[in-house]
Every structure is written in structure tokens, then in C-alpha cells.
């Protein structure tokens, strides 16, 4: 048996949609520039040519409409996978996501559901300025009735996206665009790496699932538990490697529903917990993680829980790397946490 081909995250995401469109003719993809052109990040490249214009199509530039239409298609019986071109553009669709998709099953007592998967690139590190860099996951994890998934590798991206498309509830699938083409160690001034050397770039061409709600232990360790997701998984891994810290790194992969068992077991083992995310700090998902760890692991904690996050400012353009919770900030926080 030959080894699975190497894919970057874009190719893996594309492959997930390809596999699902092949398997289930109710799956449709739609969004701004996703049809003929194949998406500004090329995630839907080739799908229109293969499956036709009624299954992979461009949409008008109206996020309210994209999500509203996807909900209606879902009510008909389709399984839409709408793309919001940048997560920064998702706000016009907030009402359709929060009040409609997320609540349709509940309010109709299961009469109607919204089996939609909203894909959207998120996060900074690409000099995208304040409107192409945000991490809005915390807005959605606060909403009942919607699942939030964030992959950190090509293998996970494909398996999680397939599981998300097959899920009968609405899923927000946030794609860390900084690592579309390669893992990122947080050193913006070093040459970019591609995925080829990373083991998780071996991606089977066919169907497989990575179940939602299951975290991955990226590295086992004894000194501290670091909870992270998306781009930050790689930044954290590279940083602790450089520091030689025996940290346990948990890649959450799904924020809702959260793998609380994995978190609890790890923190109880290490006695220390650090949370790293790119999103703004106040009411960010780290606040929820911090509360959960405190509620469950208080008597195992040897130091206060540490958070390394984006600052509570808009994402600045020229000062992007001061804002980004990179190696320097992780190192300083880690040193303090391990000293306490």
C-alpha cells in the first residue's frame, strides 16, 4: 500500500468537499467567488467543473443572503456548505446564524433543521489588517445550537470537515488561513515552511472522519498543559521545543462541543494550565476554558491559569506581530507560570 499523498490544508479542505459531493448529491457549495474561480484561497477549485453550476456556485456579495439561502436549502433537504470569504465578513450574517440556523431545530421541535457547514478563513499573520485577520470564534461559542470547529493540520481539516458536513446541526468551520500553506512557528521573520515535512500532511484521498468534539494531544508532557487551537497549536509547539519545556499540548479541534475530559485529565496531571488564542482576550474562548479548568481542577492547580491572547484592540496592520501572541509572549507567560 502506497503512502497517502501530501496535501496542504487548502487541498485537504478541497478534497473533503470533493469526497462529500461525490458521495452525497445533496451537498452543495456556494459563496463569493467559489464557483468558476474556485475561491480566493482556491479551496473550492475544480468543484464547479466536476459537479456543475447548480452544486458549486458563485453568490452575490451578501452574507445575510448566503446564510439565509443556505438555511432555506437545508430546509428543502440539501446539505449546503456556504463559504464566508473571510471570517471578518461574517457579521452581516450573524442574525441568520444566531437566530435562525442555531435555533431552528429547537424552535420547531425538530420539524426543521439547518444541516449547514459554514466555512470561513480566520485569523491573522498575513498582514490582513483589521478586516482580514479576526478570530470571531468566541462570538459563536457563546451561542446555543451551533458547533464551532477549528482544525490545525491538513489531515484534521479534511476529516473534521467531512464530519461537519455529515453533521445534522449547523457547524461553523473556521480555517486558520495563516497555516493554509504550511505550519507556522510564530517567527514571522523566518522563511515560511510548507506542509511537506509535517506528518499530518499525509492525507488519504478518500473518505474518513475525524469526530467532532474530540481534542488531540499534540505532545505529551508533565510540566504544564497548554490549551490551544488553529495556528496557535504550531506556534506553541515550536516555542516549547525552543525552550525545552516539557509541556502537554492539547489541540482542542472542536470548541463546541468541547472535549472536557481531555482537558481535565491533562490539567490534573500537570497541575498547571496555559491557554493560548489569537482572539481578543475579554470574553474570549479562553475565559470559558479558564472557568472550566478552575471549576474542575482547582485543587490540582499549582499556579494561576495563564492566558496568552490577542489584545483587546482591533487587529493592527503595521503592528501585527506585536499583537499576535507569538513566541515572545508565550515564553514570558510560560516562565512566569512555571515559576509560580
Amino acid at each position, binding site marked *: 500500500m502506497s503512502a497517502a499523498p501530501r496535501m496542504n490544508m487548502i487541498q485537504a479542505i478541497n478534497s473533503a468537499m470533493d469526497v462529500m459531493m461525490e458521495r452525497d448529491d445533496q451537498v452543495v457549495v456556494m459563496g463569493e467567488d467559489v464557483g468558476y474561480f474556485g475561491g480566493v484561497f482556491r479551496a473550492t477549485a475544480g468543484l464547479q467543473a466536476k459537479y456543475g453550476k447548480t452544486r458549486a456556485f458563485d453568490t452575490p456579495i*451578501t452574507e445575510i443572503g448566503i446564510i*439565509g439561502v443556505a438555511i432555506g436549502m437545508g*430546509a428543502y433537504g440539501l446539505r449546503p456548505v456556504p463559504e464566508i470569504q473571510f471570517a471578518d465578513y461574517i457579521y452581516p450574517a450573524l442574525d441568520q446564524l444566531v437566530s435562525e440556523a442555531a435555533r431552528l431545530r429547537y424552535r420547531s421541535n425538530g420539524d426543521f433543521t439547518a444541516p449547514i457547514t459554514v466555512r470561513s478563513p480566520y485569523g491573522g499573520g498575513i498582514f490582513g489588517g483589521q478586516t482580514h485577520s479576526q478570530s470571531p470564534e468566541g462570538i459563536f461559542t457563546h451561542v446555543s445550537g451551533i458547533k464551532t470547529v477549528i482544525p490545525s493540520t491538513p489531515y484534521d481539516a479534511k476529516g473534521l470537515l467531512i464530519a461537519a458536513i455529515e453533521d445534522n446541526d449547523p457547524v461553523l468551520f473556521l480555517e486558520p488561513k495563516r497555516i493554509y500553506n504550511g505550519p507556522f512557528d510564530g517567527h514571522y521573520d523566518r522563511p515560511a515552511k510548507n506542509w511537506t515535512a509535517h506528518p499530518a500532511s499525509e492525507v488519504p484521498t478518500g473518505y474518513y472522519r475525524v469526530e467532532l468534539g474530540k481534542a488531540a494531544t499534540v505532545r505529551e508532557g508533565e510540566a504544564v498543559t497548554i490549551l490551544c487551537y488553529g495556528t496557535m497549536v504550531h506556534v506553541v509547539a515550536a516555542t516549547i521545543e525552543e525552550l525545552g519545556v516539557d509541556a502537554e499540548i492539547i489541540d482542542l479541534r472542536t470548541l*463546541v462541543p468541547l472535549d472536557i475530559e481531555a482537558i481535565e485529565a491533562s490539567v490534573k496531571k500537570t497541575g498547571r494550565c496555559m491557554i493560548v488564542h489569537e482572539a481578543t482576550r475579554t470574553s474570549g474562548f479562553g475565559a470559558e476554558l479558564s472557568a472550566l479548568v478552575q471549576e474542575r481542577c482547582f485543587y490540582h492547580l499549582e499556579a494561576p491559569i495563564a492566558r496568552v491572547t490577542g489584545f483587546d484592540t482591533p487587529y493592527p496592520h503595521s503592528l501585527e506581530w506585536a499583537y499576535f501572541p507569538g513566541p515572545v509572549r508565550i515564553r514570558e507567560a510560560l516562565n512566569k507560570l512555571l515559576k509560580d
Partner: protein
Amino acid sequence: MTVDAPRANLPPLSLHVPEPRFRPGDEADFSDLVVPPAGAARRPDTAEPADRFHELAYGLVRVLDDAGNAVGPWDPRLDAEAKRKMLRSMALTRAFDERMFRAQRQGKTSFYMKSTGEEAVSVAAALAMAGDDMCFPSYRQQGILITRGYPLVEMMNQIYSNRGDPLQGRQLPIMYSSKETGFFSISGNLATQYPQAVGWAMASAARGDTRIAATWCGEGSTAEGDFHSALTFATVYRAPVIFNVVNNQWAISSFSGFAGAEATTFAARAIGYGIAGLRVDGNDALAVYAATQWAAERARTNQGPTLIEHFTYRAEGHSTSDDPSAYRSAGEPNAWPLGDPIRRLKDHLIGLGEWDEERHAAMDLELAETVKRAQKEAEKNGILGHGMHQPFETMFEGVFEEMPWHLKEQSDQMIAERKAAGI
């Protein structure tokens, strides 16, 4: 507030804030409202391009004239039996509304919304569509469910949030949902159903189905972004969908001017999108039927969407939580020049010799009895009461297909807290 104008030689700007013509205490007088005569509007072929009949977005399609005759090219030429059925559905809707409004006042439920004066908009439309066409209604189209034969008892169970409630007490009264009846779950957030209807219609077209979709919103909600997104999507993909704007003049206390009615009609919104726009006498059931039938044929033959403005009047309050006497003239409903939809169809049938006052009175009596019986039946399942009909833990069901751990934990916590508190 005064400001020092930088260019004092220019006239000062002034801000126009719309004001309705009549406020409490004013005498309502609509005599200068231009009401085109019945039968005057042209009826284009359903395949005619939308830019050939812009005048229909500014006029008023009317079939029933002041004497109760059905006239002109839009007369749908229904037989008497079909018209009696239409009349009966409208009368049943009104009887249902009366009864449920009273039930709310008696404290049996929290909320109700009547459709008095607007019955034609939903009943005639439902009759003009196929039974399996999909409706994405707003909150005042109970006439669709009633016309399609959805059980009154089920509607009441929902209104009472009782143990028979198909929605398990989760939704505000009247926010029905019935997939089986082709009636989408009502949201309560305004105009969200508009793009959803387009999506459903697009899916139907993409799958080579024959069913079409229709949706309703009030004139006030046309200001929502969802409305404009929906019209854009619909024109782009020529979606088989009928957009109904129920212009009942009032959005709670805001008159239609706050949605732009001082400057143009709501049907004319269609023109900018390049879709067919019809402005219809919404109190003329035959005109509503004809316009819907026309739009349905257009949609079903891949000619794309139609926007129908139903020019009508909200004869009562917005809901049981509203008191219109606080913001509009009490005389408005009676002064409304387009009359009452039930009375107009009734007069028409009487004029044809197909109906009479005695039969009408007997029908009203019978329908009141029907509603009363249904109410008795529904009340066997209980009336609104906290924790009476749905076990507390059902609150956590149906958020997701499978309950995740955090909801299970919260459910357990609630049960434990209640137990500890001895309740």
C-alpha cells in the same frame, strides 16, 4: 440646537422625519387616497419580461368593484363553490382570531396576534398555490394553515404551550411550524424568512422539482437587509419564489412612511431588482388570488420571482401587547377606503345569487362553534403554565441532535438544585 453654519449664505438643511397623517383624536379621512377603479389594470402574459409592466408596481390590481362585481382581466373566474370556500376560510380565520385573542385576555396564554382585515392576503394566496408549495410566512399568516386544513386544535395547543403542543412549549404563541403543511417555522425576527424562501426555491429548481416557494413580510420589514439580500439572490438565479409584502400601513406604531412609503410603493422595490412587481388590493380576495396565481405560473415556468405588495390595513393592534389608540386615529380602520375583505367577497357572492345573509350568519355561527369545540379540545391538554406540561429537563432537548455533555451537565444541575430546594 443651533450650529454656526460655515456657509451662512446657503439655506440651512432640514431633516425630514415622516409623520403619519392622523394621530389619536384626529378624524381619519382617506378621501384623497387614489384608488384606481377595479378592472383597469392590464394583465400581462406570465411570460412577459418584467420591465414591460412597471405601471403595475404603482397602480392597484383590483377585481371587485364598489358594487361587488368581479371585473376586468384579472378576474380569476372562480366558480361559486371555490369562492364560498375562500369566504369560509377567511371567516374561520377571523373566528379563530377572535377566540384566541379572548383566550389571551383571559390569561390562558401570554400572547396573540390577530390578522383582522388581512385575511385575504393569506387565505386567497394559499388557495392559489398548490398544496405542496412551500410557505415561509411572517407572524400574521395563520390563514395559510387554516386554509390548508391544519387542525385548529394543534394551533391552539401551540398557542397554549400545553402538553399537546407540537413545538413542546418552546416557541412564543403563534410561531407555528408544520413541515407537513408546507409551513416553515416562524421566527419572530423580521424578514429572516425571505432569503430562506429563496434558498428553498433555488434548491427546488436545482433539483428539477416542480414546487415553488412563497414568503411574506410586512411593509416595515422591507427595510431589513434580509429583504434586499433575498431579492438580489432571487433575481440572480431567477428563483421560483413569490415575495409578498403585506402593506398594512402600520409596523407596531410606525406608519409605512418609516419604510419609505412616502416616496414610492413597495411593489416598486421589484423594479430595481428587475423582477416582476404587482401592487394589489389586499382586501380584494379575488385580486390576491389572481395575482398569486399569476406569480405562481410565472415561477413554475422558470420566469422567475414576483414581488406582490398587498395594499391592506391592519384593522387591530399589532398584538395583544399593543394599544393602537396610543398612536393612531381610532377612526382609521372604519375610514379605510378598501373595505373589509370578508364583507367584500360576501357581497360579491350575494350579488351573484350564490350566497345570502342568512347563510352567512349561519356559517358564522357554525364556525364560532367549530372554534369553540376545538378550544375545549385543546384546553384538555392544558393552558400556558410554567412547568406544567413539559418536564423541566425537556428544556435541554433539541438544541442539538445529540445532547452534548455541557447541556447534560446543566440539566443535571438544574434537577439537583430543584430537588435540593424541595421543588
